[in-house]
């Protein structure tokens, strides 16, 4: 971080040709360049390997980029006061997010209406209530068979499960050794769409189950 003040100058002299990445300014811009071409979230490890940097360095550069994109008016306390400009002060139109275990650039939500006019892909229809409920049961009970989801929802879920799989939100995760039933789990695409790093970040289910502490065990005992 103490090198931040020098970034500006380093960037300029580097513009003539590739500079060794040992210089933080260059490394940051190179990281930014890589973020421009990835089409799925990239982990810090992948980025570090590709850029020939340590995971720690990549982690702090990513945090720095994220802060730059989000904008700030006062200089960060660890920035050299002599820095002529710092990096940006108003939020950019895009943001860098760490979700589903990886980093990726997104347009900022504020501009959804405008961006939506240009982007056709990824604009999926909203899920029906039945699909959401099925997705919720799978997310919290995974890996889980259709029969068990169906028992919890009280209806047959075959066609809803098919739709969720086609949408890429759930996938097969093998078969139950006892019953031979296909088990389903959520995908990393589901995490991406939820904007979370793992299913552990889903809201807790238990507060919604008042006084039902024994129920899960009860159902488990029933072999569902």
């Amino acid at each position, binding site marked *: 971080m103490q090198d931040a003040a020098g970034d500006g100058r380093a960037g300029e002299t580097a513009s003539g040709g590739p500079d060794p990445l040992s210089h933080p300014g260059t490394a940051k811009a190179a990281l930014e360049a890589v*973020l*421009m*071409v990835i*089409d799925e979230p990239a982990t810090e490890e992948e980025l570090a390997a590709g850029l020939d940097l340590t995971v720690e360095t990549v982690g702090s550069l990513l945090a720095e980029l994220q802060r730059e994109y989000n904008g700030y008016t006062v200089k960060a306390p660890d920035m050299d006061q002599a820095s002529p400009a710092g990096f940006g002060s108003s939020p950019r139109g895009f*943001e860098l*997010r760490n979700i589903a275990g990886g980093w*990726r*650039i*997104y*347009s*900022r*939500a504020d501009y*959804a209406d405008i*961006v939506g006019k240009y982007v056709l*892909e990824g604009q*999926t229809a*909203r*899920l*029906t*209530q*039945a699909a*959401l*409920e099925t*997705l*919720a*049961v799978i*997310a*919290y009970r995974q890996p889980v*068979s*259709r*029969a068990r989801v*169906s*028992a*919890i*929802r*009280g*209806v*047959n879920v*075959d066609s809803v499960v098919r739709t969720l799989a086609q949408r890429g939100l759930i996938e097969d995760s093998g078969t*139950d050794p006892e*019953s031979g*039933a*296909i088990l389903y789990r959520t995908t990393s695409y589901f995490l*991406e*769409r*939820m*904007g979370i790093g793992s299913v552990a970040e*889903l*809201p807790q*289910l238990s507060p*919604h*189950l*008042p006084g*039902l502490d024994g*129920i899960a065990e*009860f*159902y488990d005992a*029933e*072999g*569902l």
Partner: protein
Amino acid sequence: MAESKPGFEVRLANFTGPFDLLLGLIAKHQMDITEVAIATVTDEFIKYIRKLQELGGEWTLDEASEFLVIAATLLDLKAARLLPAGEVENDEDIALLEARDLLFARLLQYKAFKHVAGLLGETLHQEAQRFPRQVALEEHFAAMLPELVWKHTPEQFAALAGAALQPKAPRPTEVGLNHLHGGNVSVKEQAEIVGLRLQRESPLTFRAIISDAESTLVVVARFLALLELFREKAVSFDQLTPLADLAVHWTAGRRVWSAENLSDEFEEQL
């Protein structure tokens, strides 16, 4: 949500299943799940299923049967309430209590999932406001990709296409759920059994008619079947004193009878 509206307009799309409907009814009466007035809710549940049946072109047998299972359980519970209060005397009573607890446990569990499903929906909607950068690889990078190794003959490729295009047979539902879900008990089927039995021997007590029922659900189905047969004037009942054995008489005479005659009626009703 639709539940809060007065009149509780019924459209199939409003409910994602029997639990949803049941929760809707409970909410409408501002009752706590744990102290639901079974009789009220049961009657309304049955009424709404009937209405849905009248409205619904998209109502599949599959969906209908799920509602029916819950309806049967509710009826069962309602019937139990009509018995003298409080005493748990035999296995049937215990089974009823278990059925009730199980129904409410499932209902509460469903309610929790319904609620988090709402949260998931909100999050998905919020997150859909952000669009990921997902652009095609710049041409000079794409050109650097290693030359594709392609070993497939057109015939092999066609075989692959054939397999991929083969419609996937719907995989069978794999786990027996009879202990929870109830088997697929058809009222029509039970009517057939009851009808034939009564044609052979009449009168029979209700106790005798259900003596070989393998589950509570079958008992309920046979009870419903008898009600239908009564409406069809195929049977009559007599009971000497309240709670005495119910005797069922076959009154349709010797005319050729089969459950097929009732089938339309049954299917519309349940």
